[in-house]
């Protein structure tokens, strides 16, 4: 397989030479992943677009790693010539930090950034555009953050049709019949 990953490895080398990558790997054919500090986002995107001809901005995504207190933002580029998807990942603190706006490089990035700003509350420096993109009159914490618990919000906001209160849990039903107690530490392994 190593022979067939030539162009992918070459791309990785070029990027390694040019930038201080935190890490980088060839995920599989046509997928190369690099991780980079967020100060270098604009340089690497410009480099990829202007010099390496990664002119198609495929995707931009955000993952909430709440345990680390970080958002991971992923920029995915595509080269129509090399036919490689380049995934550029960077991490940014959940609170207090922001990312540079890149919609001057690709105008459609504006849409992604607006969505991430709205759904994660991650600000982009210099982003222009309507604040409300998908939601309307939203005054909770941004919904895609993992600390937003959607079912709790739902149970206090919306109605639930009555008539289902008589539902029984199989485990409890059987426990009740056997007159046995489940220790607390075991409960997390019961099915929910």
């Amino acid at each position, binding site marked *: 397989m190593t022979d067939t990953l030539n162009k992918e490895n070459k791309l990785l080398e070029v990027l390694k030479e040019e930038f201080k990558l935190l890490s980088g790997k060839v995920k599989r054919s046509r997928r190369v992943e690099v991780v980079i500090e967020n100060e270098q986002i604009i340089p690497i995107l410009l480099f990829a677009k202007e010099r390496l001809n990664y002119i198609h901005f495929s995707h931009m995504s955000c993952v909430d790693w709440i345990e680390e207190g970080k958002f991971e933002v992923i920029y995915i580029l595509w080269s129509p010539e090399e036919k490689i*998807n380049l995934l550029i990942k960077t991490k940014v603190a959940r609170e207090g930090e922001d990312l540079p706006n890149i919609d001057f490089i690709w105008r459609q990035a504006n849409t992604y950034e607006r969505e991430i700003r709205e759904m994660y509350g991650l600000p982009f420096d210099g982003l222009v555009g309507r604040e409300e*993109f998908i939601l309307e009159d939203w005054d909770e914490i941004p919904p895609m953050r993992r600390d937003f618990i959607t079912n709790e919000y739902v149970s206090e906001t919306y109605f639930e049709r009555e008539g289902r209160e008589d539902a029984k849990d199989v485990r409890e039903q059987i426990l009740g019949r056997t007159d046995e107690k489940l220790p607390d530490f075991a409960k997390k392994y019961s099915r929910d």
Partner: protein
Amino acid sequence: MREKSTTLYIGPQHPGITGNMMVKLQVEGDTVVKAETHVGYLHRGFEKLMERRNWLQSFTIVCRICVPEPDPNEENYARAVEEIEGREVPERAKYIRVMTLELARIASYLLWYGGQAGSAGLYTMPQWSVGDRNYILDLFEDLTGGRIYHMYIWPGGVRRDLPKGFKDKALKTMDYLEKRIDEYDKLLFENSIFQKRAKGVGIIDKNKAIEWGVVGAPLRGCGIKSDVRIDDPYEVYDKLDFEVPAMEGGDVWTRALIRRFEIRQSINIVRQTLEKMPGGEFYNKIPNPMKWKIPAGDAYVKTESARGEFAYYVVSDGTNKPRRVHVKGPAYVHGVTLLENLLVGENISDVSFIMNSLGTCPPEIER
């Protein structure tokens, strides 16, 4: 004509809108001077919901992201999960998947025929093509048990094998459709009024198209041969014989021609898959779904849907639930930045027309 600028809302309740969205237009006379896409009317928070559902439960929800053509979603999701987990898919399943995808493409194009002609006021076309689309849906029903939401392609393969007599029925339907598409051609593509309407409208600049994020038929309609099926082959597309068209023009008419060509190609691919389909297993069984964990990792997978490149970015943190599933439909770019830019300078008669030719599908913008 009045030169005063009027604000015109196309949608959300509007017969001309594709789905449930809104385009806010600034109009001078009949000409659009500014367009703004407003979405969020269909936002269900799929990606949030998937955080709460395990890997298999999420499989039933992804197809709901795009109604006209749910299968690319299922296929993408399944393939992403398989890629992270390293699960093998039997060859037969791959063929069945390709067949399903192509049937879905045909169904979607038939719906597009209706939408494109309907937005131009030719109401006979939707009656025909959407009516004939039911025959594809019948095939889906036989195959998957559902007309619209198939929930058929799942991680590890497909859910059920082909039913008895499916091949004959499918081939017969394909023959019928091919005949019908000739009739559609006469009604729609040879129609001088349609040609007048479609030519020179909604032109995408070829030089900027890739950079603007245009994908799928609109990009091929700019003369750029780009198709995930050949650029980043998945399933068994590399073993099938089909052509990807590319035509210069960039207007609604070229896009329509591309689709007209592709629907025939799809019929051809369906026939090929039915012929070449190997025997054997159709499903590499997953473990008990409630306890099925996927090792940590991420995958970016793409499918060529009828509207263009459909991509999934899936992240697993090693638990039985996805960390993040990010869906990018072609309409995400087509429906917002591209549409907003394309509409400027067009006649308001063509707003819905252009929207249909781009395949704007709001549920995949807001998910």
